[in-house]
């Protein structure tokens, strides 16, 4: 058999159910709604880096599960997070993406809140006395917030397990990189992709598409054979690799890289490590710099992608410039690597839209070496567990 007719095409691959995924996971609106409530509404999710809130009362606004939130550093130096809406008539409270506010005043009728979410002022409160409104019951909605290795995580689900049990050992290979010295975000960009959030995150979970990137073909392919690369998968859908290598001399103009600025703690200039946190955060380090990217679903075929680049806080200007150069070589809107992954995510979206592509195959088994699909399988296993659906057949009647 060569090409397939409709019947053959529509048939599920003859593979174990864990080894393929239905295209419906990218397009079905009910599945999307379930993802928003059952995954994004319940997991710990990276919100921002603590260096974005260096001072007391610094705040940072961001989107999560369709809603606007803000993280703010309180007078006790603790970072808390709140829904960014006024308790009075629902107006958005903070309008700038970042700032400093010892008191948060709603522009509309001037209700005020403090950095702990307490409603501290209502103009002419006497008007509410007849109805018996209590100001003490009018605080903001606080969202659970924990900081780990400088990463601010939040969770909309007050009943979810703690951050540490959720992460488990997934971040271990970046512990010294992220936590060895204080880091600082020097790059931030956001872009709305025409792709499902998983199509994007898959570009971070599959390293055997290296051939797609000329810059990786030239700097990574020969630096370490696929067979020697080691992947790790963890509980809760996370994964990582701590032992990848690059030879920057392979790409014209990158040769200087590695000698011109010290690497981050516990990593060398040619090491390449990454961690994928379920559901949609990836943290990567190429020795001298760190990238963090976070996907926020906006619809089955729309995803907000936020990308950060980090260097060492307080480092000399020349070091910072060099790290920025290193960052930009691969990452950012003009990097040699990242735009190609976005292209891939959008191309998969286009393939599954309206049911042309039916299944994707994640059947590579290579003992957790570089070409294994194990990370993708671990991700979809967790996805299925949280939604109570089989990724291979997600519209089948759910297991009871």
């Amino acid at each position, binding site marked *: 058999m060569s090409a397939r007719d409709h019947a053959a095409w529509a048939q599920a691959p003859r593979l174990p159910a864990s080894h393929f995924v239905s295209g419906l996971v990218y397009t079905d609106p009910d599945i999307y709604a379930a993802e928003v409530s059952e995954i994004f509404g319940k997991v710990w999710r990276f919100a921002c880096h603590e260096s*974005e809130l260096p001072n007391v009362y610094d705040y*940072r606004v961001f989107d999560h599960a369709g809603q606007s939130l803000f993280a703010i550093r309180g007078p006790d130096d603790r970072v808390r997070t709140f829904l960014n809406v006024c308790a009075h008539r629902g107006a958005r409270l903070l309008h*700038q*993406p*970042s700032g400093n506010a010892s008191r948060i005043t709603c522009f509309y009728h001037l209700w005020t809140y403090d950095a702990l979410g307490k409603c501290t002022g209502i103009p002419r409160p006497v008007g509410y006395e007849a109805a018996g409104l209590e100001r003490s019951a009018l605080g903001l909605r606080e969202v659970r917030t924990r900081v780990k290795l400088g990463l601010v995580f939040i969770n909309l689900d007050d009943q979810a397990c703690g951050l540490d049990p959720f992460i488990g050992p997934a971040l271990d290979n970046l512990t010294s990189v992220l936590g060895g010295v204080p880091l600082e*975000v*020097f*790059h*931030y*960009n*956001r*872009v*709305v*992709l025409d792709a499902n959030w998983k199509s994007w995150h898959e570009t971070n979970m599959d390293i055997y598409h290296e051939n*797609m*990137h*000329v*810059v990786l073909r030239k700097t990574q392919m020969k630096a370490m054979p696929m067979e020697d690369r080691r992947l790790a998968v963890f509980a809760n859908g996370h994964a990582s690799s701590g032992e990848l290598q690059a030879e920057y001399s392979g*790409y*014209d*103009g990158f040769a200087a890289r590695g000698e011109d600025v010290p690497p981050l703690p516990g990593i060398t200039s040619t090491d390449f490590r990454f961690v994928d946190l379920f559901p949609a955060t990836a943290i990567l380090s190429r020795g001298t710099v760190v990238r963090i990217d976070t996907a926020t679903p906006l619809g089955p075929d729309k995803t907000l992608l936020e990308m950060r680049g980090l260097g060492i806080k307080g480092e000399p200007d020349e070091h910072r410039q060099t790290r*920025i*150069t290193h960052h*930009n070589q691969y990452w*950012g*809107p*003009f*990097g*040699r690597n*990242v*735009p*190609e992954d*976005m*292209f*891939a995510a*959008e191309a998969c979206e286009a393939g599954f839209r309206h049911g042309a592509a039916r299944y994707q195959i994640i059947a590579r088994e290579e003992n957790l070496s570089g070409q294994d699909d194990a990370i993708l399988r671990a991700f979809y296993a967790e996805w299925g567990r949280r939604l109570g659906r089989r990724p291979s057949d997600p519209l089948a009647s759910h297991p009871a």
Partner: protein
Amino acid sequence: MTEAPLEAAGVRQLIGRAGLLLDDGNYDGFLALCAPDFNYRIRVWSPELAKDMIWLEHDYAGLAQLFAALPEHLTRPGRLTRHVTVASVDAAPDALKVTSVVTIHHTDLEGCTSTLAVGRYLDRIVEQDGELRLKSREVQLDTRDLGIGSHAPL
């Protein structure tokens, strides 16, 4: 404030031509308009970080390497149309400082056009061997969501 008319015309010509050449993917042509010590930079203000960011920076050689590498990269299909209008020309001791407003449209493979980015070109222009040359260009983007991004300079 009045600019010398001869220079003004030449400057508009140089900036205009540079835009056409980039649109056409004629990178050799573009480089031929640049001085050997040319510096290219994309600068963007981040209201999130309250900082300026550099998203791309190259000297002449780096830019030439980038242009040479483009055919091997997977890039956004379609075509860019840079609409550049010179807004001010100021004399400075070593170069003319020229600020232009730029609107960049992208036309996809299906022929549909959308606005990709708006911003400014801050150029320094010098005379070399009787010709005006770009000594530096800083692209200041107002637009920060550039879709899948770009390997090529804007």
